[in-house]
């Protein structure tokens, strides 16, 4: 026999591998057809929107394009000044040619009535510059050479190197400036990255608060869910099923109803405060503020996310036979040692799964903090919603959401490295 195995063939001489592939092709096609609807659904509703969001966070053509809302026609804007930026490297002082190009573009803006949208784009980078564009565009016809002086006369800000830097950055459409904004950073005249003014720093603090609150909620959920899950796992099946219904009951009620009932309970004229006043624990003027702040957010979100912790814990605890703890006890361990060294380590896959699930859900939670959070209990998702709906700075919203997404992915990766994703049991 030779060392290299001869190519195996079927009885009638076909290569075995192709015969195998042929014989299984039909069942493989059928298997694919079964998952095809889900595959399409995921691609259309999940992969494409996320891709679009990621793209929008690094691409904003507001400075160079204008889309007519009625006709859908796209007009190129700021072509002259964009051409000047391409010919001259970064750091070149804008000369008369540059100002002439800018003036020509401003005249074009007036004709296309796109001054507002271009100004908006620069306004994202330098707050307060929208009006710079709108007012200058309104009087663009009257600009005459020399343009540098004419524009400076129209508004001194046209001589500001920051404005020129922002225009250069916006002229390509592709930019990482929104990520800088989302991390409370900006660029100075030289293009170096610096922190924004103390007064307007908000995003990093909100990210930290979101992570902190989510961690707190996860911890509270774990502490509350562990005994419940253990009880459910040790009761006879008939009774544990009944209790499981109670755990799942919140899922059958609208999220809004549950959140509003917490408002009823916890507000300063609410049930809990009334009771404490009636019993005499606190005075009438000492009512505790538990709603529209962090306490409200933590309480309501813990309640809502608790089942996501109970279920994985239960599914891990149920198959652990009582004989493990008994064995540990008979071998001489106290009940605490038996719990810590024998029972707890076996529930870790459930703890990990539940914690990861609750934490990820909490990080992206929106409705509850919006309703009960007040100013103090807002999370990053509320700010993303604000930029989506109010300020219409979608690129910034996308950048914030992307940072959130990557943060969660990094946590997931860390979890995999430290605990191992194979050790996770979701149910």
């Amino acid at each position, binding site marked *: 026999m030779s060392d290299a195995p001869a190519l195996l063939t079927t009885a009638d001489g076909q290569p075995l591998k192709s015969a195998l592939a042929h014989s299984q092709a039909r069942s493989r096609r059928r298997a694919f057809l079964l998952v095809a609807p889900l595959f399409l659904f995921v691609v259309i509703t999940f992969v494409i929107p996320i891709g679009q969001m990621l793209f929008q966070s690094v691409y904003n053509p507001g400075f160079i394009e204008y889309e007519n809302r009625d006709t859908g026609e796209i007009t190129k804007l700021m072509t002259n000044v964009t051409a000047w930026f391409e010919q001259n490297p970064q750091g070149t002082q804008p000369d008369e040619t540059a100002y002439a190009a800018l003036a020509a573009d401003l005249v074009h803006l007036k004709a296309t009535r796109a001054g507002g949208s271009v100004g908006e784009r620069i306004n994202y980078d330098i707050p307060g510059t929208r009006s710079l564009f709108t007012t200058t565009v309104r009087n663009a016809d009257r600009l005459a050479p020399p343009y540098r002086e004419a524009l400076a006369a129209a508004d001194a800000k046209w001589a500001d190197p920051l404005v020129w830097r922002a225009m250069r950055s916006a002229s390509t459409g592709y930019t990482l400036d929104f990520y800088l904004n989302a991390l409370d950073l900006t660029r100075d005249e030289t293009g170096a990255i610096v922190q924004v003014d103390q007064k307007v720093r908000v995003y990093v603090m909100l990210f930290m608060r979101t992570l902190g609150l989510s961690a707190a909620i996860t911890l509270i959920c774990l502490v509350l869910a562990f005994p419940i899950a253990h009880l459910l796992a040790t009761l006879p099946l008939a009774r544990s099923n009944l209790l499981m219904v109670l755990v799942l009951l919140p899922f059958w009620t609208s999220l809004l109803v549950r959140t509003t009932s917490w408002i009823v309970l916890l507000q300063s004229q609410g049930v809990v405060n009334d009771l404490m006043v009636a019993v005499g624990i606190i005075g009438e003027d000492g009512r505790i503020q538990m709603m529209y702040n962090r306490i409200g957010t933590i309480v309501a979100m813990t309640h809502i996310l608790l089942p996501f912790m109970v279920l994985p814990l239960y599914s891990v605890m149920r198959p652990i*036979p009582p*004989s*493990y703890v*008994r*064995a*540990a*006890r*008979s*071998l*001489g*361990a*106290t*009940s605490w*040692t*038996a719990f810590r*060294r*024998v029972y707890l*380590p*076996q529930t870790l896959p459930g703890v990990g799964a539940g914690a990861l699930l609750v934490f990820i859900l909490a990080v992206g939670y929106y409705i509850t903090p919006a309703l009960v959070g007040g100013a103090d209990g807002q999370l990053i998702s509320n700010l993303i919603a604000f930029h989506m709906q109010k300020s219409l700075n979608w690129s910034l919203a996308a950048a914030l959401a992307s940072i959130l997404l990557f943060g969660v992915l990094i946590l997931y990766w860390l979890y995999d490295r430290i605990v191992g994703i194979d050790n996770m049991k979701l149910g």
Partner: protein
Amino acid sequence: MTASNAAAVGEGFVVFDRVQKSYDGVTLVVKDLNLSIAKGEFLTMLGPSGSGKTTCLMMLAGFETATHGDIRLDSRPINQVPPHKRGIGMVFQNYALFPHMSVGENLAFPLEVRGIGKSEREAKIKRALDMVQMGAFVHRRPAQLSGGQQQRIALARALVFDPKLVLMDEPLGALDKQLREHMQFEIKHLHDSLGLTVVYVTHDQGEALTMSDRVAVFNDGVIQQLDTPDELYERPRNSFVAQFIGENNKLTGVVEQIEAGKALVRLATGEVIDATPVNVTHKGQKTLVSIRPERVEFKPDMMPPGAHVIGAEVIEVIYMGDILRARLHVAGSSDFIMKMRNTIGQTRLSPGQTVNIGWDPLDARALEPL
């Protein structure tokens, strides 16, 4: 029986003194248990499921509390002692090896919680593993071991801290037949060489007979008979034990004559047979006569002189290798079994054939029906 037990109670290494157990306050799972186990004894609790044998073991281990009565270990009442202070080694049915620890860590566990130093720990672990021929597996995880290997580790873990008493709760139930027989031998060997006191729970009567010094047959929360294996098999004291231990032929009838350890029983169909009265006392009493299939004879010259014989028709003969097993129609019922050794000169019976069968009166035990 109660009198003889009462005499033993108070002297043994492990003593159950009038122990009762109820889970719901309505029914008793264990009814008035008196049992004394000597040091170094291998005692098996045998019985069908729900007979109270496992409950007794759990009370001894400390996982259940006795509703009434005393349990004493080495003359010390242990009712109030928590399980971890009893110093009893236990082997569980599913082995209960901690899946997140290696074999070595499993064995180190009872030593660590006792605060035994590292070097002494390692010596003890090595000794225990060598005892069950598993020395090479110290770094494996339980999941990487076969059922028999896990069983050995569980055994080593229960012995590594030198317990005074070892409890085993159906430890071989999950193994296949061959391995089970091999492990029975090994456990018995360990018991002999280490001088252990073992309380063993099983529902497998073969296991109970081969391993034990004494067997306690449980049914309905009561010890039906506590005896050595041969006594139990050959001289069952009541119908339950007779039926539970080994295969048995049952013939019901009425005592016709009874005197000096001999009885004549008239069956419902009119035949008369010989029997030894066990717990029947007077003429006219209803009785159940139990005869082991291997003690039934069909060749006239093998029967004791003067023994009564009874007509039987062969229904089927099954060839089982070492024995031939014949099902006979006897006294109106057709589940009478006779076993014959498969020897060269053995007469081969065939279905439809009629024979006369009989037995030594000592082998037919007239019992009170259930």
